[in-house]
């Protein structure tokens, strides 16, 4: 699939500011870091959760718990797909029961990944609250799911692709809008 570059949605500074604002919003609602955990969805939700935890530690002087979640075994399309996704380890090294869990991901689109993440999380125990933080909400939901914290809302068409780059996974921080080339 060939992609053409259409626009840059965020540069490194804007991305950093968006995460800073989300970090403040999370603490404001959670009223501190007690009982708070950030869980990143593989792949790019993981560094986002870690960065938010770093920022919260910086503001509050205490770090919330953090973890990594792989949702592959909870996808709703495993009987249909032609490509086999690689299953990765879930690392949630704490008891999720009675916690406030903030799921973190880079892009919210159809909502199917978030749905799978909710099921995966609930199978580990019963958190008190689950919230969702995303860097980009690009619309086109297929399920009744919304984010609690959004870095930027970006209206898109389905032919477009939102590409989040993070220094941990991609060597730089940026958000790009790409489009599938015709044909």
């Amino acid at each position, binding site marked *: 699939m060939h992609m053409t570059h259409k626009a840059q949605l965020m540069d490194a500074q804007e991305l950093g500011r968006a995460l800073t604002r989300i970090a403040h919003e999370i603490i404001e609602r959670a009223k501190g870091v007690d009982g708070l955990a950030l869980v990143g969805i593989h792949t790019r939700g993981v560094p986002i959760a870690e960065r938010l935890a770093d920022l919260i530690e910086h503001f509050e002087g205490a770090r919330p718990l953090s973890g990594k979640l792989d949702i592959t*075994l909870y996808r709703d399309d495993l009987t249909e797909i032609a490509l086999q996704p690689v299953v990765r380890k879930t690392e949630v090294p704490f008891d999720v029961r009675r916690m406030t869990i903030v799921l973190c991901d880079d892009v919210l*689109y159809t909502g199917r990944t978030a749905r799978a993440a909710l099921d995966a999380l609930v199978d580990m*125990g019963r958190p008190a609250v689950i919230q969702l933080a995303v860097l980009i909400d690009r619309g086109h939901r297929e399920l009744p799911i919304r984010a609690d914290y959004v870095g930027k809302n970006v209206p898109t068409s389905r032919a477009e692709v939102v590409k989040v780059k993070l220094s941990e996974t991609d060597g730089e921080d940026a958000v790009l809008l790409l489009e599938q080339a015709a044909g």
Partner: protein
Amino acid sequence: MIPGSTPLAETAAKTSRRRHLLDFEGWSRDDVLALLDTTDVMAQVMQRTIKKVPALQGFTIGTLFFEDSTRTRLSFERAARAQSADVISFAAGGSSLSKGESLKDTLRTIDALQADLYVVRHQAAGAPHQIARWTDALVVNAGDGRRAHPTQALLDAYTFRARFEGFDGFAGKRLAIVGDVMHSRVARSNVALWTLLGAEVVLCGPRTLLPAELGQARGVTLTHRVDEALEGAHAVMALRLQHERMTRGLLPSLAEYRQRYQVTRKRMRAAHAGALVMHPGPINRDIELEGALADAPYSVIEAQVANGVPVRMAILYTLLVGSR
């Protein structure tokens, strides 16, 4: 893939083609290592309070055991149900097969139940291959004659990788298999798998139970002396000695077998530091294995049994997802 999830090129997803697990023919080292990685994830699932994921919901798995093996069948069924697959069980005893129905006719009847994958155990070498030719379903060999038992070899390799202190890859590792190699599909599959992974395999047993042709494969050596086999070994696998071998004159006496081939604590001193003791089970204590050795801290025999389920979960996942 889920629209909006990570773009295609970056999921490291592989295009799956329809494939069976009959033996390790057509499996690369990377395929196996990916399967062992998936096993790690499945092992995590089995450590949770809720030991179930929806991954294989909508798939049906048939266990076809023409030769009885309750343990292996239960392990596969647990692996299927832990991923929410449906399971159909067929056991040859009491079926029409014992009334003279041919394998092909039996399969035709079972095939009408529309399973996506069959787990086949058969006393005849090659039966799972034959079944794979007759059906559109995928086939996993759960043991055929003396030929192959690939899922046992995978759980052995997985157990070694998980438990060997400071594991840094299979290359340069040495597996010693001691006992009745001739009648052992476990030995044959382990030879195929460990050499594929880059390890060396030493096969050891009495002349009558050690077929020379097995020594022709690369990375495999044969010896009749157990001390030589254990020298520098990172893993030592004792094979079950079946009593009927004695009556057929393949062995002089049990006492002599014990004296010459029993894997003992004393003999283990020649092995590499941290060497693990393995056994495919069930064990004849104090025959092929010194009784106390089975309970030694470096014995991973219980772990082998426990790892059977996550390894088989990974196999079912790897074969089924992407196959339709």
